[in-house]
């Protein structure tokens, strides 16, 4: 007889032991001597995969379908083979990004999307609840079963009893308490639970020992070894049919879909993710775990068939639920101790699963569902609260309770109609929906947020429609009609036969049917939408960081997405709010140590510390929320967009700079050309000037020599020669004066004698001076002068020089016969306008451009080089420029030329300023 008290005492004693292990584990972790930092603990903790479903259910399934149930364990074995490639990548990514849950992982991969995190959380919670209900069912059923020991009374399904007298309800509450104790003992809401891992590893050991004990008892205690048991089973046709499987293509589909589901489950069940990824201490542990874990699965399955066949041999009438064979066989053998051990083993399997699963789910609910909403509610103003760690713990505890109560509710209303394994498969199918988004996310950069979101939602919808709706219908929440005839009688939409899929011909069971449709829709939509949508900059960065994690992980700390700065005190208080003051200070001190900075002196920080803080926060509240919180204290717009703009801006500046350089070098080049030209012109000028000087000098010298050698020369001739000598000498002085003038003007050393002048007088004086020349050439001179003009300010001698230059210039080019020069003067509003017009050969438009340039002379093929230095007009222009006037020429070849200039009436602005060659 097993007293209820004994059972409860042992059960609570066992849980106490677990708690002690967890406590010791945490203590040792704090001291830095982790007991979980070895591959064996890690591998054993992964065995949380084997729940009450395995412990009780696999025998039950073997008793119904024989060897086919093994697919649930061969699938994970296949995944373990690739564990080093897939799991290590997920672990590395998660460590670098401080990922705390599967929702966090998916959200982070697709641009830290809060929406995606919420959706994944909802799918996970709803998908896992049936699974949790299985554990509640297993504990409460086995408790009721063994409390009747030694009589075997199959407990009735107690759905009609009130909740408060239902053992399962108290089981659920107790499990919630244990989850609190294990998962939220610390005041800091951190993601790691070393003690918990140790306890889970211990539980794995206990359930394996318990199951092996039952197996050995059945095989060697009740029968004479394996051979005896199997040969007896072979004799019974109802049992020996399980020795083989139906290998027709039709029925092997179930085997494949089970393999597929278990492969997804081992990777993406929240509790597997929690233990394999989040709680992983060292990725090197994976090396041993990838064969230790399959070995564990193999060991725990060794006796599944013997126990199942033993049960079938003992209870051939089917009166005993095969799910309980593990307990009922020791019970009929009157092995009270073994029964208790098995019960504890089952309790280990169930409680381990529930505790880890609720911790994982509560982290997701808190970080990815509740906090993002709370942080965005303006009236709560959570962002300003000084300490949020207690709020976080409250939310986590609340969500743990919620998950377990939902699990109980599902048990209470639905589970009684299903076997353990069937319920588990509903959860597996839900979890498999994460497959495309995660595997696609870590191996394919093209997956987009929208694609993942649409794929997940679609797959989840199909899951709900094809698996959950029928189960609810069976529980009486929906009419059976809905399932049998389809909604509104549309048979195309029957949940068990979507689009009239011929499930019988294909050999699809309900789960294969759901797996097929949900994965088809999920994968198809994920891929198609990803191909058709564009990634944001953030998504693109995250995609690259995830897919190429091994390429970037070495310098991951440096490649931050934050480009802004934040003040250290602001970051410190932000961290303190979520992590607690102590841990925040510790974390900052650690960063300061490793980066050799003094946090007390540094007031603003760089992107490195901002990223570090974000990751720390992500550990507590999830990456999406952490991003929002950090953004609130970081100054600049952090996104990569800004970065790109910076880079673009930089590029633009470089382009501008190089353009400026080009321009400058172009200017230099032009100046150089000009200098070269000037140099050439100066050479020409020198040769011109010397030529011009030599000509009169030669004639002066020749005539002087003639006069010198012939003292008795004819007086008339003497007179003539003397006149020529005088004229040539004058011409020489004129040339020399021109050169000197030009040089003076150019170098700014010209002395200007400014006075008020009547320009009419200047013209008259100039004409007077030129009269001889004009008459010599028989040129007709017309003066067009007004009676009175306003006075101007200017240098009289220079302006006379201008007029002389222009008149002599005109005279020079006038035809020998009928030459005519017109000089005009007009007073206009603010200036005087003067023109000197001749009817000479004219100047071609091309030459008009250069006549005012120094050293330029218009060359004419027929007349040769004109007389003069080529400086006259140039000097003229500079004099006019000095007087702030303009000078220009209008002409055409053969139509004479008209030189005009203006002089401003207000001469006050005239200042003495040097003029440069380059002006």
């Amino acid at each position, binding site marked *: 007889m097993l007293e209820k008290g004994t059972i409860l005492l042992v059960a609570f004693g066992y849980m106490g032991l677990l708690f002690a292990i967890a406590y010791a584990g945490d203590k040792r972790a704090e001291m830095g001597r982790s007991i979980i930092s070895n591959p064996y603990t890690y591998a054993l903790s992964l065995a949380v995969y084997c729940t009450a479903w395995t412990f009780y259910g696999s025998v039950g399934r073997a008793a119904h379908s024989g*060897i086919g149930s*093994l*697919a649930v364990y*061969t699938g994970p*074995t*296949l995944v*373990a*083979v*690739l564990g*080093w*490639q*897939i799991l290590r*990548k997920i672990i*590395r990514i998660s460590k670098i990004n401080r990922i705390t849950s599967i929702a966090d992982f998916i959200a982070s991969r697709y641009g830290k999307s809060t929406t995606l995190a919420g959706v994944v959380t909802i799918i996970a919670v709803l998908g896992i609840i049936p699974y949790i209900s299985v554990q509640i069912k297993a504990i409460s059923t086995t408790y009721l079963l063994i409390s009747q020991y030694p009589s075997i009374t199959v407990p009735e399904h107690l759905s009609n009893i009130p909740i408060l007298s239902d053992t399962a309800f108290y089981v659920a509450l107790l499990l919630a308490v244990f989850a609190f104790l294990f998962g939220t003992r610390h005041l800091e809401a951190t993601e790691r639970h070393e003690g918990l891992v140790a306890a889970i590893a211990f539980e794995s050991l206990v359930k394996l020992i318990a199951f092996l004990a039952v197996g050995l008892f059945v095989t060697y205690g009740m029968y004479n*070894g*394996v*051979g*005896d048991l*199997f*040969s007896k089973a*072979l004799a019974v046709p109802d049992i*020996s049919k399980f*020795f*083989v*499987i139906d*290998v027709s*293509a039709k029925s*092997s589909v179930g*085997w*494949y879909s089970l*393999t597929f589901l278990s492969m997804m489950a081992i990777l993406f069940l929240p509790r597997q993710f929690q233990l394999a990824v989040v709680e992983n201490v060292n990725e090197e542990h994976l*090396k*041993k775990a*990838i*064969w230790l874990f*399959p*070995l564990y699965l*193999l060991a725990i399955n*060794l006796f599944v*068939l013997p126990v199942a066949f033993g049960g079938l041999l003992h209870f051939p009438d089917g009166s005993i639920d095969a799910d309980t064979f593990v307990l009922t066989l020791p019970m009929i053998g009157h092995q009270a101790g073994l029964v208790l051990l098995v019960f504890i083993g089952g309790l280990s399997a169930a409680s381990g699963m529930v505790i880890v699963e609720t911790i994982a789910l509560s982290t997701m609910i808190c970080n990815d569902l509740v906090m993002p909403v709370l942080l965005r509610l303006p009236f709560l103003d959570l962002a300003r609260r000084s300490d949020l760690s207690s709020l976080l713990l409250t939310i986590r505890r609340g969500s743990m309770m919620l998950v377990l109560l939902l699990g109980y509710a599902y048990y209470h209303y639905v589970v009684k109609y299903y076997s353990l394994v069937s319920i588990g498969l509903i959860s597996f199918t839900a979890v498999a929906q994460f497959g495309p988004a995660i595997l696609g996310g870590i*191996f394919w950069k093209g997956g987009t947020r929208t694609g993942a979101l649409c794929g997940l939602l679609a797959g989840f919808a199909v899951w709900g429609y094809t698996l959950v709706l029928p189960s609810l219908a069976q529980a009486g929440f929906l009419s059976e009609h809905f399932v049998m005839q389809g909604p509104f009688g549309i048979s195309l939409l029957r949940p068990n036969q979507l689009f009239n899929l011929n499930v019988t011909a294909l050999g699809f069971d309900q789960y294969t049917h759901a797996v097929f449709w949900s994965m088809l829709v999920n994968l198809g939509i994920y891929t198609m939408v990803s191909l058709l949508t564009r990634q944001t900059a953030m998504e693109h960065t995250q995609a690259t960081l995830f*897919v190429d994690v*091994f*390429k970037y*992980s*070495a310098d991951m700390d440096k490649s931050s997405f934050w480009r802004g700065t934040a003040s250290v005190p602001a970051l410190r208080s932000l961290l303190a709010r979520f992590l607690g003051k102590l841990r925040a200070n510790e974390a900052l001190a650690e960063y300061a140590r490793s980066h050799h900075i003094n946090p007390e002196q540094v007031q603003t920080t760089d992107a490195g510390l901002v990223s570090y803080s974000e990751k720390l926060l992500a550990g507590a509240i999830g990456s999406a929320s952490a991003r929002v919180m950090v953004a609130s204290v970081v100054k600049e717009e952090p996104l990569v967009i800004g970065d790109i703009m910076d880079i673009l801006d930089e590029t633009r500046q470089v382009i501008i700079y190089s353009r400026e350089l080009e321009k400058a070098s172009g200017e230099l080049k032009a100046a150089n050309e000009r200098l070269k030209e000037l140099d050439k012109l100066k050479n020409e000028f020198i040769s011109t000037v010397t030529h011009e000087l030599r000509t009169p000098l030669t004639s002066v010298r020749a005539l002087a020599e003639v006069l010198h050698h012939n003292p008795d020369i004819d007086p008339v001739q003497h007179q003539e020669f003397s006149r020529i000598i005088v004229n040539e000498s004058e011409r020489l002085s004129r040339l020399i004066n021109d050169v000197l003038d030009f040089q003076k003007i150019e170098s700014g050393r010209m002395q200007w004698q400014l006075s008020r002048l009547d320009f009419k007088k200047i013209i008259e004086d100039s004409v007077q001076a030129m009269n001889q020349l004009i008459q010599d050439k028989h040129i007709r001179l017309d003066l067009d002068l007004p009676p009175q003009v306003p006075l101007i300010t200017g240098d009289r001698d220079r302006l006379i020089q201008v007029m002389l230059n222009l008149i002599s210039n005109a005279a020079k080019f006038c035809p020998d016969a009928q030459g005519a020069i017109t000089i005009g003067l007009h007073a206009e509003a603010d200036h005087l306008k003067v023109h000197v017009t001749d009817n000479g050969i004219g100047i071609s438009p091309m030459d008009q451009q250069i006549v005012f340039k120094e050293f330029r002379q218009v060359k004419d093929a027929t007349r040769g080089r004109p007389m003069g230095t080529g400086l006259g007009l140039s000097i003229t222009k500079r004099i006019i420029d000095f007087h702030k006037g303009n000078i220009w020429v209008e002409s055409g070849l053969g139509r004479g030329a008209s030189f005009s200039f203006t002089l401003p009436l207000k001469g006050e602005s005239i200042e003495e300023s040097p003029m440069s060659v380059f002006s």
Partner: protein
Amino acid sequence: MIGQTSKTGLSVGIFMLGCVLFSNPLLALFNYKVLLLGVPLLFLYIFAAWLLLILLVIRVARIRPRSAQIRGSQDTEDMTSP
């Protein structure tokens, strides 16, 4: 010689071997209601195949990557996506 091959390649190979071992044509080969060593043949086969896979994984896990001596480069060694 085995160290010259990429670990990823070997792992993928074992994975594919596992898929073949656990699927129909091969399962059908052993699908008879007979006992071998006192154990149903199919049962024995599946566990043998399972054990084989585990042994192969152990063997591959022991392979040190070519560039193991060079710290850091070890990480990128095998991560060409399967």
